[in-house]
């Protein structure tokens, strides 16, 4: 066979394989992706929504939205506040939700370096982000554009997240208890959390991601535009997280004045519900150092509801 024919055959086979994978993936992902399902639920929602709960796994694992009146949970695992902004924007622009309040996270990881560099579910989130906005999301725009084009051209490369293969494991995890681990394992878990999710730069002075703080401002501006009052929540964490942050990042990092995003929120007189230390000494309510388990969720939701209700009465 001539070289030209071989090349042609190769290109045709590549195009066919790509097309098959592309369409099969889209068909399955648009049915199976939990974020797509979440959007579909939002769209179908006919009830009046008073409170929108947004954020990452802390909100998803911490709050049982079924016992909170007129609330809708938009939070999802691994969602950083930049993606929260785009999702919120999309929902407000496209669906008839008109919430009065939006609950947003302001935990240590929310604006941390590692967590905001760790991007998952790109298949879904990049569909919400405009081409021009991509450069704003990272200190290295080339890396972000590379990911963006990769997802746009080869969406099936994100199959693991798009098809939510970890869903069952996640549900299983919520049945465990952090107290079942020995002290070394607990500390190792907290240390791992610090290295991977908090401070990927590995520098003591570099815990927070400046771009993520810019997105906090954008989110607040969005709330203002839609006349929504934001409420920030600091979800419960275990003592091990505080110990690791204190000893291995910076002992002053836990002080509020050393948390730039929180200072920004407080300077604008936006309320912050602080549950950070609520269960610091109750490892049995967590399954790892920073996620509540099923028992934790059941215990935390009524307390959260009570605090939120009393706040909303005056706010």
């Amino acid at each position: 066979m001539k070289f030209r024919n071989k090349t042609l055959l190769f290109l045709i086979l590549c195009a066919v394989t790509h097309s098959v994978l592309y369409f099969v993936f889209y068909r399955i992902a648009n049915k199976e992706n939990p974020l797509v399902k979440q959007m579909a639920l939002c769209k179908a929602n006919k009830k009046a929504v008073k409170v929108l709960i947004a954020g990452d796994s802390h909100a998803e694992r911490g709050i049982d939205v079924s016992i909170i009146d007129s609330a809708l949970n938009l939070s999802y695992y691994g969602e950083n506040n930049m993606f929260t902004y785009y999702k919120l924007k999309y929902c407000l622009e496209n669906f008839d939700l008109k919430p009065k309040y939006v609950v947003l996270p302001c935990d240590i990881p929310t604006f941390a370096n590692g967590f905001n560099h760790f991007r998952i579910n790109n298949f879904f989130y990049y569909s919400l982000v405009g081409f021009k906005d991509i450069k704003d999301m990272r200190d290295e725009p080339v890396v972000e554009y590379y990911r963006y084009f990769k997802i746009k051209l080869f969406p099936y490369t994100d199959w693991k997240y798009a098809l939510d293969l970890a869903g069952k494991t996640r549900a299983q995890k919520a049945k465990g208890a952090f107290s079942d681990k020995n002290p070394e394992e607990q500390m190792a878990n907290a240390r791992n959390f610090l290295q991977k999710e908090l401070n990927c730069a590995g520098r003591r002075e570099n815990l927070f991601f400046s771009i993520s703080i810019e997105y906090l401002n954008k989110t607040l501006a969005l709330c203002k535009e839609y006349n929504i009052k934001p409420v920030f929540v600091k979800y419960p964490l275990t003592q091990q997280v505080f110990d690791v942050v204190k000893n291995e990042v910076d002992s002053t990092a836990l002080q509020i004045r050393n948390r730039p995003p929180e200072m920004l929120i407080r300077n604008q007189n936006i309320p912050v519900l602080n549950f950070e230390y609520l269960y610091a000494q109750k490892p049995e309510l967590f399954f790892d150092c920073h996620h509540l388990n099923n028992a934790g969720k059941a215990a935390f939701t009524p307390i959260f509801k009570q605090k939120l209700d009393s706040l909303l009465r005056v706010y």
Partner: protein
Amino acid sequence: MNFASFPYLCFLGMCILLYFTLRKSIRNIFLLLASYLFYSFFGLGFVGLMIFTTLVTFITARYCYSAQTKSAQLVYFFIGLLLDLAVFILFKYVHIIDVDILNWPAWSAQKLLIPIGISFYTFKTLGYCIDVYKRKYAPESSLVYYALSVSFFPQLIAGPIEKSHVIIQQLKQNSNFSTANFKEGGKLILWGFFKKIVIADTIALIINPVYSDIAKYGGLDLILVSIAFIFQVYADFSGYSDIAIGSAKCLGIELPYNFNKPFLSKNFSQFWVRWHATLSAWLREYIYVPLGGNRTSKFRWFFNLFFVFTLIGLWHGATYNYMAWALSAYMWVLMDILTKKFRIKLALKLHLKKRGHIIKIISYVSVVLMVAGIGVFFRADTLQQSFYVFEKMFCFGPSKLGLVNCLLILTCLAVLEFLQKFQAKPKGHCFELIKNTYVRISTYVVIIFAILVVSSRPDITFQYFQF
């Protein structure tokens, strides 16, 4: 920059394009700068260190060669050798002395990073000094050529360790762009990507959690994981080598092979000739043979082997684990030598053909098990953890690895071994023996899409980058 990544392919593509479009007189300067740029992605300070090593060995080798007296030659040789080794030891081992032996709390040795690839380029520069001192070759007169032979980016980070003069000779030929080389190089890169991303990283993602919580797993799990680990390292390192050889080939440079289907070795001694072949060759040429090799008394022969294996362990790192790994490998080699006659007699007694299938299967299984056994030391974080793994291997409990993970591991091993069947030469790829054009082209497509589909996983660095 990760070798098995799209950015690396872009970098390589740019280098090939510019290298062959530039005038021949400045091509090598460009390639040298590109190699330093490539290395600077891992740390700018590392480049400075490599330039220092290059300059030291370049200058001392020249002085050594031109010195009139034997003693002057020896002095220059030792200056080069010691400075080269001093840098290597300072960066590779001083933090171990600091932490483990002297325990200096305020001293900053722990902050010294181990420069990536230092073990590889130090061995190369050492070999150059020794060759010049022994008058095997004249020292290179051009600093650019010599520096490029040390820093040539495809082989800079993890080999293959090729002699400087071999690379310099090829660089001086200044060959034109060859479509055949480019095609062959591309196929090798594709094969390397497949081995690294599809095989090695898939296995790594399954076995890494096992090593972080060994107590949870049963004996059978740990046996499977130990076997899987050696295939992971093999796919990882040989994948890297294929990418390196393929990249160099695209630029018109031939690098030696590093792996020659090591698990198909007849015995454990042969395994070391086929696994990381360039390191074995270096040690054989510069250490083992000068010590007398096997043409000496049995005791001396065994001592020579012991010395070489100790060096192999130290080269990987001054940890108890690497030493235990190397010394247990030495024990297997000794056992192989000592039982050779007995095994031949036994095979004759059992009427087994020398190259028959049964012998081949027995050899394969025994080599895999022996390598997997010592591989535990290589993978475990501490010596205690290694012994714990061995202990747990004999506690047969229910499998916690899960059927899917077990099947995935076995599939990876089967696919790797199956595709390797189509690799004829050691420096080849899996497309060589697929004669049917349609099947071959379909294989390219399947491999490309397999790489794409699994490429969304987090980056797992090459195992041998740490050395």
